[in-house]
């Protein structure tokens, strides 16, 4: 039988195809839409979010739950980025660490002072010192972290590495890669290590 598609039927069919976007097509369109979203903002910031690095792209693709071999690959490449302080000193001053843990300043488009150091936002997601009752629960509680684990060099290295690049030990962790992404300096990270591990820190009292 000879069939002729009327324009109306053709339109429905085309519309039908549009509903069948593959995941790849949806992703490509989302990327285009994303790039058209920040046209009035800071161009440097826009370039930084437009371009995902490998870990960001893979974690987005797998919705933070990558298959085991992908997770291993991410952890391997992220572990290769770990840099420890040249001084060899991993534990700084817990008092400064507490200030950094409280501070949410930095890298928002309304944060104008590049000379003011960035904060770590730690309390936004973690319980840390017990005196601070306004803490978040996105990450695990870190109260008594050092009391339970001591402060030998191995645990200092672990904590420093976790803050520097959380994905070196856990692919697609929710935690920002503070050192790797240039949010916190080496010295700031050593102060946070002290906040968690120094026996004098309120965390371990």
């Amino acid at each position: 039988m000879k069939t002729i598609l009327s324009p109306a039927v053709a339109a429905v069919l085309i519309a039908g195809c549009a509903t069948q976007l593959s995941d790849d097509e949806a992703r490509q369109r989302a990327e285009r839409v994303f790039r058209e979203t920040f046209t009035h903002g800071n161009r440097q910031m826009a370039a930084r979010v437009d371009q995902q690095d490998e870990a960001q792209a893979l974690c987005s693709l797998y919705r933070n739950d990558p298959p085991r071999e992908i997770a291993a690959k991410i952890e391997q490449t992220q572990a290769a980025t770990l840099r420890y302080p040249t001084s060899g000193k991993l534990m700084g001053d817990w008092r400064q660490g507490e200030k950094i843990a409280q501070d949410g300043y930095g890298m928002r488009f309304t944060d104008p002072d590049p000379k003011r150091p960035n904060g770590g936002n730690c309390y936004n997601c973690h319980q840390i010192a017990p005196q601070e009752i306004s803490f978040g629960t996105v990450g695990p509680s870190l109260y008594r972290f050092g009391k339970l684990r001591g402060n030998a060099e191995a645990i200092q290295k672990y904590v420093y590495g976790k803050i520097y690049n959380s994905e070196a030990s856990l692919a697609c962790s929710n935690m920002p890669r503070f050192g790797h992404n240039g949010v916190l300096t080496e010295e700031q990270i050593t102060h946070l290590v002290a906040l968690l591990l120094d026996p004098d820190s309120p965390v371990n009292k």
Partner: protein
Amino acid sequence: MRIERVLAGLLAVILPCAAPAQQDTQKGIERYRQLLAEGNPADLWEARGEQLWKTPRGPKNVSLEQCDLGLGPGVVKGAAARLPRYFPDTDRVQDIESRLATCMVTLQGFKPEEALRNPFSAPGRHSDMEALASFVAAESKGMKLDVPIRHPKEIEAFRIGEQLFYRRAGPYDFACVSCHGENGKRIRLQELPRLTDPGDAQKIFTSWPAYRVSQGTVRTMQHRLYDCYWQMRHPQMDYTSEASIALMVYMAKYANGGTINAPGLKR
């Protein structure tokens, strides 16, 4: 930081003594919310919005009363419960705010940039959009959210929103899901809705626009997303961008069935 300042204020009001248990803190905040809810300042925005809706304005000196919000010209009741949705005349999926802007252009004769110029109020500067969106949303109060995801462009918006929800980027590696992917989590003391959980989504999505105590003004859903990207260390999101509306459609999929309770009242 704003959050800390406001929380300090809240705690000073609601906590009679130092070092309370977490649960008491949460209860205190809920009690405070309840007190405020008995007289939501957003009522003032809603009333001003209704006034703006009915007042002839713009180069053509007409009111917005014939604006088509999706249910036909002049129908405001229930329209917000079905937004965002696809509009054939603009060939776009539009939310409350972008549709209001369309009506300001087509009915009242404003230039597009005029209609979109002042979306978020600042101290000493009102936003007509905040008032109009409050009015339109309130006209669906008590109705069930029923955002259509049927037209190909609505489905496409949903699929794009889904991708964006999981898209990690920037110096903090954040995506929407970083904060809104699990039940029962908090940032500081602020509870975080899991936006893919209908239980959470139905409560949250239906309560915008909302009076924000911390900002002393009504904020819209557009502002909520702009503020999220600010926290995520992304640049300034363009007002009524396609991405913002795609994210709303994605959220609405899980929020559908919830009861509209806007304008709401939030921290």
